[in-house]
């Protein structure tokens, strides 16, 4: 009795609100909501999806969707950061850890070519959550749902021991020494031009440099990076970068999107375009397969036909670009895979010339890349010598490339797969060398606008895995073609000779020459319509394909 009454003295009506189902990412505890409407304004102003609203009035007011509806936005996870009271929280992270148990590591995201700045919160060997870090030039304070929730993929399907496929077709775990010895031996048995290397979409610049050096030392020059297509154009940086810069896209007042669906390919770039549409009333014209936009846009056509019409001034949209003060043309990197890409590029360049898109004070001719490794690979000159190097390979070194067409690999080829996930390419591998994922290593990446950024290790590697460049360095030793670097600093010295821009960390090095001085292409443009480069926003690489959360999103949010 000394401590007062054991009965509650709150006899008034207690307000409570029904929780809403917003999908697999955002959990709601609506009784906590203070009706600040930050989530409503975020959804309608920045994410551009009009799902959330303020319903009712007075004390009965609540946040909701009124009809049963999931939040279908690729930026929906940001409402978790925005909500001041925890009415909207992360469903995957809920009750998994306490804030004070977490160690934060400032890193960058590699699931798309934007290079969003993130903080990886880890507890011991586990990544517990990923949060955005403010960088006004890249992702502002938002990140896409793929960036935020792909981390559970890092715990599943991991490769943790070197393995060799036995005669019975099963993999057997072996020691690093044995695995490397086998690889080195086979590498010496084939002809130099039959050695082919492919870097994956998540590779860091250091490992790509090492791979290229190793293969060059073996006498081969067939190194490429996934997604860059055959015979990529790597001579002029302006030919593969987002020259305007992500932040400066806000200043544009007309957009021509050629074969690119920024909402799916680079959600943060899309948010900038949306910003320009809202504040400058920018006109957006889109050429490509039918897709959804979250701002006003005009679907001009599906293929090169429309592009030609604009180039010849026969299309109504060509005057929109010509009359714009700061026109921006964005070409999707999906075009890289087309046979006639040079012809497409030259038509786009002729549009750019006639509309004065490239001026000393404004460069509006852009390429939007798809993968984190692409820009650095082209900076480092990962350009294969011949068009069909994979088809003629006897020794194929796959460094994390999981979207290769495995049927193209000859059946007698010896395939080494170095990577962190047992994804698609391991089915064809003869030897598996486990490497570390982006959360476990220090690696340099260049994003689509040519900004060099760095990942930092947040958690230890799993099992016996090693950093990519170290594996290649060790292999070179075993193969008797020792690479002259022993540390990250040494390898960066080497990178400096090839691409000095990859050393100026967090800086964006714009391309110096404009690509308008290229020679005329020989090929004719074919009239096949542009294809969608990415079908499923939530699953684009080995990490996101291994993620359960991303699988739930695919099942619930993408169903038509």
């Amino acid at each position, binding site marked *: 009795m000394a401590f007062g009454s054991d009965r509650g003295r709150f006899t008034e*009506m207690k307000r409570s609100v029904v929780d809403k189902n917003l999908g697999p990412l955002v959990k709601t505890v609506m009784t906590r909501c203070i009706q600040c409407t930050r989530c409503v304004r975020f959804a309608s102003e920045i994410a551009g999806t*009009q*799902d959330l609203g303020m*319903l*009712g*009035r007075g004390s009965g*007011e609540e946040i909701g969707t009124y*009809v049963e509806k999931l939040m279908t936005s690729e930026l929906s996870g940001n409402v978790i950061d925005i909500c001041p009271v925890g009415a909207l929280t992360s469903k995957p992270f809920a009750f998994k850890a306490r804030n004070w148990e977490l160690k934060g590591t400032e890193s960058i995201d590699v699931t798309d070519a934007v290079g969003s700045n993130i903080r990886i919160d880890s507890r011991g060997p586990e990544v517990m959550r990923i949060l955005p870090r403010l960088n006004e030039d890249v992702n502002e304070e938002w990140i896409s749902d793929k960036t935020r929730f792909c981390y559970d993929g890092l715990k599943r399907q991991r490769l943790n021991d070197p393995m060799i496929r036995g005669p019975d077709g099963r993999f057997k775990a072996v020691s690093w020494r044995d695995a490397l010895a086998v690889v080195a031996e086979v590498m010496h048995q084939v002809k130099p031009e039959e050695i082919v290397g492919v870097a994956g979409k998540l590779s860091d610049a250091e490992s790509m440099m090492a791979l290229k050096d190793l293969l060059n030392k073996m006498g081969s020059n067939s190194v490429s990076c996934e997604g860059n297509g055959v015979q990529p154009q790597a001579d002029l940086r302006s030919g593969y970068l987002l020259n305007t810069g992500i932040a400066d896209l806000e200043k544009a007042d007309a957009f021509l999107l050629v074969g690119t669906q920024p909402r799916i390919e680079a959600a943060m770039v899309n948010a900038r375009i949306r910003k320009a549409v809202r504040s400058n009333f920018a006109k957006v014209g889109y050429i490509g397969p039918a897709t959804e936009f979250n701002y006003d846009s005009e679907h001009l056509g599906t293929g090169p036909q429309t592009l030609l019409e604009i180039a010849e001034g026969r299309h109504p949209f060509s005057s929109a670009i010509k009359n714009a003060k700061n026109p921006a043309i964005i070409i999707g990197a999906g075009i890289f895979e087309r046979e006639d890409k040079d012809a497409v590029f030259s038509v786009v360049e002729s549009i750019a010339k006639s509309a004065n898109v490239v001026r000393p004070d404004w460069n509006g001719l852009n390429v939007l890349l798809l993968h984190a490794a692409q820009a650095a690979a082209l900076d480092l000159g990962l350009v294969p010598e011949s068009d069909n190097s994979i088809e003629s390979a006897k020794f194929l070194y796959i460094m994390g490339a999981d979207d290769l067409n495995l049927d193209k690999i000859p059946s007698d080829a010896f395939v080494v797969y170095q990577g962190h996930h047992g994804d698609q390419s391991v089915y064809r591998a003869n030897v598996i060398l486990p490497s570390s994922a982006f959360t476990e290593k220090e690696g340099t990446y260049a994003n689509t606008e040519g900004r060099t950024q760095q990942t930092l290790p947040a958690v230890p590697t799993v099992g016996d895995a090693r950093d990519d460049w170290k594996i290649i360095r060790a292999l070179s030793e075993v193969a008797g073609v020792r690479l002259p670097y022993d540390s990250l600093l040494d390898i960066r010295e080497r990178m400096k000779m090839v691409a000095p821009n990859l050393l100026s960390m967090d800086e964006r090095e714009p391309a110096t020459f404009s690509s308008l001085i290229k020679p005329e292409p020989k090929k004719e443009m074919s009239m096949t319509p542009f294809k969608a480069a990415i079908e499923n926003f939530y699953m684009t690489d080995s990490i996101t394909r291994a993620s359960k959360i991303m699988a739930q999103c695919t099942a619930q949010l993408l169903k038509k």
Partner: protein
Amino acid sequence: MLARRAAQRLAEIRQAFRHSAQASRSLSTALNYHIDTPDNNPNMPWKFSEQNQGKVKEILSQYPSNYKQSAVIPLLDLAQQQHGGWIPVSAMNEVARIVEVAPIRVYEVATFYSMFNRITVGKYHLLVCGTTPCMIRGSRDIEDALLKHLGVKRNEVTKDGLFSVGEMECMGCCVNAPMIAVADYSNGSEGYSYNYYEDVTPKRVVEIVEMLRKGEKPPHGTQNPNRIKAGPEGGNTTLLSEPQPPPCRNLEAC
């Protein structure tokens, strides 16, 4: 001893207030979220009727073409009249389509205003004013009389579908308190009327209900035979002389 008694008294007072606190929450006729039912779901087709198409055009013409969304309230009102006094979710979707906004923006408006009903109401929707002046003049008794006579609860429709009783905040008639408003949806948007019956008594509201049931139109306005409009009972008692013009307005005379 004294403290206990004081606490008891306080609990009683709270008890008395608790009822009204809950009552104020149930002003609107429905929940703040939609639950699919056979007669109210998004797949139900809903269109403005032939005659109302013209009215829709007229309503839209009153607003600039780039601010179409301003028409959302008059359009919802028209939809409610057409649909027998309430707005199904498919009608909200239709309004959203017409004013070119996302449906959620229309849901927000429709849930905000308690005069938009989102569940069925009777052909005659009786709204009792529950705000202070009317309450002091006995609006609780008025409501009780109505509910008892019709045998329903608040916001419930009588079996014959003719009547429902709701509560409303002050309707600006306090000088003739207590009052009820009767929304007449019996004849669609053409025969729609929204009339005030003022100075009512528990007996008088029952009479009004019975007249409505017979299809008669009871005279609206004050129900006190001794008053004219909002004038005092038994005629004016002051300001009986001819009104004088304000003295300094006549510039010559000044």
